[in-house]
């Protein structure tokens, strides 16, 4: 377009800046909004098969296996783990705290527990820790009576060595047992961490039993 002589002289000054202010407003609002709603915990899942209620069609192959199934059952009570299978119940092991042979296979043990997972609370089974003060400092170590997950893994490794094809474990629990104890037992039963960071799979198929009466 033709310009007036007076405008022609100021031609260089017409280098217009894009007005980014509304855009900046929008972005500076959106970013805090998204940051707040963002979840920084990494989540995972544990696959669980339901206790067989009605739907028998799911899962099991129709042909009969040569060997009878192991039917490994871990029962969680507030006294510890009890292991049972088709052959019978594993008797209790004598523990340093004087666990009786009539008690659970793996009784609770007293040990130093890192508080990082239990800030403001106590490790399961919580019923036995009612009188104790909860963890406050995440860096602290406190004495608690806890489920002996290492021992459970150790015994399950021995069972896995004897029955290498077995994948399935049934977990039953007393009605008052916390969900956290359940997932801890599933972790202990799923895999064994070996030296060098490798993991050996033990019993990844978890079946939850409807519970003890």
């Amino acid at each position, binding site marked *: 377009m033709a310009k007036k002589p007076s405008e022609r002289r100021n031609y260089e000054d017409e280098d217009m800046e894009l007005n980014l202010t509304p855009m900046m407003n929008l972005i500076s609002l959106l970013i805090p909004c998204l940051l707040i709603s963002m979840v920084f915990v990494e989540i*995972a899942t544990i696959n669980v098969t339901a*206790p067989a209620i009605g739907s028998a069609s799911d899962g099991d192959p129709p042909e009969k296996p040569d060997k009878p199934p192991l039917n490994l059952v871990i029962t969680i009570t507030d006294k510890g783990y009890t292991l049972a299978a088709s052959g019978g119940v594993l008797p209790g092991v004598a523990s340093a705290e004087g666990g009786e042979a009539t008690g659970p296979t793996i009784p609770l043990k007293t040990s130093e527990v890192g508080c990082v997972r239990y800030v403001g609370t106590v490790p399961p089974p919580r019923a036995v820790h009612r009188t104790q003060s909860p963890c406050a400092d995440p860096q602290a170590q406190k004495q608690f009576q806890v489920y002996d997950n290492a021992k459970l893994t150790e015994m399950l490794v021995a069972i896995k060595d004897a029955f290498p094809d077995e994948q399935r474990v049934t977990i039953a629990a007393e009605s008052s047992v916390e969900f956290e104890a359940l997932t801890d037992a599933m*972790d202990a039963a799923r895999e064994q961490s070996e030296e060098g960071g490798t993991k050996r799979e033990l019993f990844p198929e978890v079946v939850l039993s409807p519970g003890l009466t």
Partner: protein
Amino acid sequence: MSEKQDAIPEGINELPDPSAFAAPEGGVKRKRKQRDLIKPEPLSINSLMDIMTILLVFLIKSYSSDPVTLKQTEDLKPPFSSSQLKPDPSTTMTLTLKGILVDDDPAVQIATSDGQVAESDREGGGFLISPVFTKLEAAVEHQKEIASYNASAEFKGLLTIISDRNVPFSLISQAMYTAGQAGFTKFKFLVVKGG
């Protein structure tokens, strides 16, 4: 060498005319020119905009990619686990000591401190939690209806259970029994990685 070099041009020792330094007659014009020179450059925010745009895209992408989102509150702290399995998109059931939610929609409240649903809300020998059953059944119906129109969105019967770590096993087994009755066959417990 030559006379030319020695020769001093005429008038070099004379002082210049002081009037040449005086303000020109159009004083206003000159002031405006000075003001134009001092005028500050507009703040260059182009690089800032680049950063913000990249951040925005990253945030929106990570926001939409999670199939199941978890908002931890005082009442809902899932346990830690060493599991590495990724969550799948599915119906969710959230269990806390205060109540049960189906797909983030409150289904039943728990008034007692022991985490048990009131007897009046339970049927089938105390195992079936009726308000939860109604909601789960509606979710199954909804998914099956979608599956009837869209073959790729097949109904898998998968339910993700988000549970607080203090929830007792009795409530979990009741909730799972209820979900089983509503048509769910596979379950995933949501846990927090680590530990």
